């Protein structure tokens, strides 16, 4: 449904007037998201996960390679087509404390995408529906709150409701639970799998945490320094990792029964 073909991304770091160095964040990355699938992208920090996420929603443009959505090349679209594309492919950010505007209420955050995407129907009713969907019950209680009045997990739910308001086909979640404490993580991940099951939305779950990956994803890609080193179904990769790097990642994941 959405796939990247040999995508590379180089950042140019300027030093002085003429000099500078190229930093390669991604090289020849090909990943594909199938319909109604939860895909995991795993890697340590600095491996290019977030760059890949931003390229998928076209906040960054690939230096080379193509992004293909529904069999058409979208790497260079702009204007109306870009807006259309982003209604289908949305992103959930890592930090729910930064991704909601502190000056606007919860209701505003969910209303705006409905107004922008010209939702035909009762907008207020839809807002309530979306809030209930992400288990912010009762909606009346949350609607007029401002982001600083609710907790981190609730903020992330509000953000997910904001994204769902656009009725997307794919949600790219860039470390959506890393800022939340462990008990809340499970709830948000449950929410993601519920979203997939009920609405058939494909989800790309980007993380460094292999514990949570094993809970919800169907397939995973392992990224190392901007290169895909391993891919396959989650069970296979976690049970028989071929790469040393993957093995290290698995070992690094905390295990409550293991003692140092």
């Amino acid at each position, binding site marked *: 449904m959405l796939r990247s073909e040999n995508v590379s991304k180089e950042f140019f770091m300027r030093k002085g007037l003429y000099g500078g160095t190229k930093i390669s964040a991604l090289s020849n990355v090909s990943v594909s998201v199938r319909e109604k699938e939860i895909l995991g992208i795993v890697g340590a920090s600095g491996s290019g996960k977030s760059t890949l996420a931003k390229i998928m929603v076209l*906040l960054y443009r690939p230096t080379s390679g193509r992004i293909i959505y529904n069999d058409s090349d979208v790497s260079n679209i702009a204007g109306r087509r870009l807006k259309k594309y*982003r209604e289908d492919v*949305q992103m959930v950010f890592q930090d729910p404390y930064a991704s*909601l*505007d502190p000056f606007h209420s919860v209701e505003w955050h969910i209303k*705006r995408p409905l107004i922008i995407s010209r939702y035909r129907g009762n907008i207020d009713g839809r807002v309530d529906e979306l809030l209930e969907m992400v288990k912010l019950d009762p909606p009346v209680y949350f609607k007029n709150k401002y982001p600083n009045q609710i907790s981190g997990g609730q903020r992330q739910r509000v953000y997910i409701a*904001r994204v769902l308001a656009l009725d997307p086909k794919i949600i790219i979640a860039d470390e959506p639970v890393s800022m939340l404490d462990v008990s809340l993580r499970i709830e948000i991940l449950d929410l993601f799998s519920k979203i997939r099951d009920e609405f058939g939305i494909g989800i790309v779950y980007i993380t460094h945490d292999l514990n949570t990956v094993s809970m919800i994803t169907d397939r995973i890609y392992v990224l190392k320094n901007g290169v895909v080193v391993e891919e396959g179904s989650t069970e296979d990769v976690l049970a028989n990792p071929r790469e040393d790097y993957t093995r290290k990642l698995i070992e690094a994941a905390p295990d409550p029964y293991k003692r140092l």
Partner: protein
Amino acid sequence: MSEVLNNSNDESVGISKGLRHLLSGVAGSIGMLLRNSKAKVGFSILLLLGIFAIVGIFFSPYPPNAYIFAKSLPPNRINLLGTTGYGQDVFSQLIAGAAPTLLVAFSVGLLGTLISLAVGILSGFSGKRVNSVINAVVNIFLVVPGVLLIMLFGTYFLGIHRNLGYLSTIIILIVTGWAFGARTFRSITLSISKREYVLSSILIGESRVSIIFRQITRAIMPVVVSNFFFTAMYGTMGLTFVEYLGVGNLEQVNWGTMLYWAINNEAYLTGQWWWILPPSIMISFLMFGFILLNFGLDEIANPSLRIFLKKKPKKVDENA
């Protein structure tokens, strides 16, 4: 057809809503101001001066420019603050001169801030090329020495036997004074437009206009208010300077021309303190008010500057 109408209706509602957000932002900032003691004092000073100026528009004890008294009288019962070396009443001049001085200060502050806000946000929120072009223009205006430009224009106007009116003074002060604020707004907008909540709005499909009016102006409102006071200070100083140099219209009565005449007649050497002190003190007061408001605002916007008063320890409920 009806759909088209509906859409346009939507947009206009959106814009008026944006304006309302802007206004509520301003109201919110002023409300915050009054909770800070420095800002409160500054605000009261400005309010008093404003009342003084408004009274001065409608009422002054004597015509401010009439030479109807004995020259250089010290303060007495008839002339509250004495008379000038030409026989004018100093208090009448002071009260009549307040309105134009404040008018120049506030209009320079307001228009200068609006221009720098527009330029700053535009450059901070647009592509690299537009950004660097605007940045270059701002830099050029930053290095233009305002005072020299004022003198140049002033002497030119003198040369063609015309005087700088208030309007041309205001225009010159705005032209020389907007660039600093534009730079500030540009850098703040650059930083805010990289925040995730703005990225999120871009992804959701918000238009630039909507993001600017609904989100960015809200976030930078404290800086806007602070910049307004700075530019207003610049306006006061600029007006005083123009009049002090004698390149303005010297028949107009304001605190700057009062200083010009007092100093030209060497009031400070002949001991006519009642002529030179009142306008100086009023100008200082005005500046003081602006500065206090600015400091107060700094404390509000930057919690690390805030001095916390010792609070009584909360009573702990033993039963809880």
